[in-house]
């Protein structure tokens, strides 16, 4: 039976540089301002001064080094889980599994830090921990890949279902053998050694994981845009039959692309633990996979544009806290603003050509 063909969802297409069509500046401005105007009316309705609130939101994100650091900090995992969606998308695959791959990556990274790397020096311990995180994510990605290649299961559904399984797996471990003996039986892992924490930039909470994420985005972009391998992936993504006719081993490519995607998301998990959290909790990194997926789709799966969209999502998240505290409105108001901004951006530009 034939599956329905879908309207382009941006899973295929070229990997050229920024394909921005320079529309009149006015239109761009309108797209960016409209959601804030709409939301401003909403605020007035609840007796909140929108201008003052927007002012304090800008202040909290760009007002000082700390605020900017928070935005970049928030964007870091989005970049990596975004890559975990964008890379397979270029091969024509929809990987929604960044969420679970991040979780398992964080689990492996924490496990290695707690049981193995306690006394390792930073220069050795951190790279091993990074590899452990990548391995965890890769294994989870491999599960999806194996089900795809051997079981012929659609990767979208398996990655969604496995996200839930991954979440409960992490919960199982932090409620069990990874439970900190000094945390009064609460479900947290022990704190990892200070030598295993990523260095941070003074005056912020931002850590070098941010740079790792950017470097990986550039690497992924380079591989896709500049190498034979990347070319083959893109051919596969835009026309599977052509790739088959050209003698490409389609299944093998699918397999390794999904594994690589898992590794990228797994690194995101490691960075969360080593860079900011210090210990694993059942809630570590929840929703980061979905936000990364969103960032990737907003960027039409372009690894470098992804940096921008991740930054945008990070900014909205940080400003959302300010919105809530400053306005006295419930947390959901920040989610509404995010939805509005993204919808206007999505609707405000023309479809990228396939």
């Amino acid at each position, binding site marked *: 039976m034939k599956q329905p063909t879908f309207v382009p969802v941006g899973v295929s297409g070229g990997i050229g540089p920024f394909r921005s069509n320079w529309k009149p500046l006015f239109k761009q401005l309108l797209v960016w301002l409209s959601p804030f105007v709409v939301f401003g009316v909403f605020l007035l309705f609840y007796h909140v001064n929108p201008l003052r609130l927007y002012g304090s939101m800008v202040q909290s994100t760009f007002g000082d080094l700390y605020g900017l650091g928070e935005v970049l900090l928030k964007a870091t995992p989005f970049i990596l889980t975004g890559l975990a969606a964008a890379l397979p998308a270029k091969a024509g695959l929809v990987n929604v599994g960044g969420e679970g791959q991040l979780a398992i990556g964080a689990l492996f990274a924490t496990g290695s830090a707690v049981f193995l790397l306690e006394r390792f020096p930073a220069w050795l311990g951190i790279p091993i921990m990074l590899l452990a995180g990548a391995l965890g994510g890769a294994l989870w990605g491999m599960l999806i890949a194996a089900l795809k290649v051997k*079981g012929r299961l659609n990767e979208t559904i398996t990655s969604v279902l496995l996200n839930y399984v991954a979440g409960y797996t992490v919960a199982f471990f932090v409620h069990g053998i990874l439970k900190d003996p000094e945390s009064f039986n609460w479900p947290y892992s022990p704190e990892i050694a200070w030598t295993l924490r990523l260095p941070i930039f003074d005056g912020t909470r931002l850590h070098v994981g941010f740079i790792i994420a950017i470097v990986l985005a550039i690497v992924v972009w380079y591989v896709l845009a500049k190498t034979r391998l990347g070319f083959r992936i893109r051919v596969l993504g835009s026309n599977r039959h052509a790739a088959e006719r050209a003698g490409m081993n389609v299944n093998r490519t699918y397999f390794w692309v999904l594994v690589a995607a898992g590794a990228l998301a797994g690194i995101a998990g490691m960075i969360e633990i080593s860079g900011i959290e210090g210990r694993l909790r059942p809630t570590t990194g929840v929703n980061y996979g979905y936000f990364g997926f969103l960032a990737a789709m907003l960027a039409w799966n372009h690894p470098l544009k992804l940096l921008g969209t991740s930054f945008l999502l990070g900014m909205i998240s940080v400003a959302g806290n300010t919105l809530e505290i400053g306005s006295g409105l419930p947390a959901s108001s920040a989610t*509404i603003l995010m939805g509005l901004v993204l919808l206007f951006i999505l609707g405000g530009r023309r479809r990228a050509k396939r």
Partner: protein
Amino acid sequence: MITADILTGAIRSGTSVMLASQGELLSERAGVINLGTEGSVLAGALGAFATTVWTGSPWLGALAGGVCGLLLSAIHAFLVISRGANQLATGLTIMFLGIGATSFLGRDFVSEQIVGFNPVAIPVLSDIPFLGDILFNHDPLTYLSVLLVPCLWYVLFRTRIGVILRSAGEREEVLFASGINPKLVRYLAVLAGGFLAGVGGAQLSLAFTHSWVENMAQGRGVVAVALVIFASWLPSRAMLGAYLFGAAQALQLTVQQQGLGISPFFLFMVPYVLTLVALLIVERRKHSNTPEALSRVLAGEGGG
């Protein structure tokens, strides 16, 4: 006894997922993936609950729930079909918007009480031993949802409307040739999908739980989207998948009460793992013994 409980639970807790996945199926048949289904389910749950509070009529509530689900999916339809926005990104955004908007608007309804839909035993049939309780003692929305499945199948595979709808997802050229605007068809399919997801939400709030709290769909809309792929875009299999998922949800709670010494965290995974396993078995069979012949029977001659 326990089997009967689980099977009853399967239908009770699977119905909202089932309705949402039937809606998503329509939308995808016309070529539009709507990840915003979760949002539509929530909008439906709140709209239905609020209307029932105001009017006292769960039937008006269910209708309003459908309309709320439809309205949210209309945003998706506009952005994707008219503006050519990325479907997956738009869907995910709609999902977040739906969660945010319903949480915000629903604050005053958390403490409200409704009568809602209650199980109605069908005379005679409900007296059948074993099966009677499982199948014929449910709320009206559940009965309707079961009737919906063959109707959808009939419309999709036996009527001209169905051909048009599927053509929008498969062979646009055919529609152009016969002077039908595929965009319009897609619009209608997405809106109908949103309506069904909204009714699914109504079942959740009016019949299953009789309450509204923020984010009460808890991923049921996401699972519904996944189930459509599981179902190979066939209404009957989407129903099966949803009941399987519901059964697994009920099963894990029942198993816990037996005190078997299985970690609850493994039991939490059961619905998802079981769906995966079922998927594997179904796919295997399809590729080994009964390939296209069976699927053609299931799907009717227009199935693909």
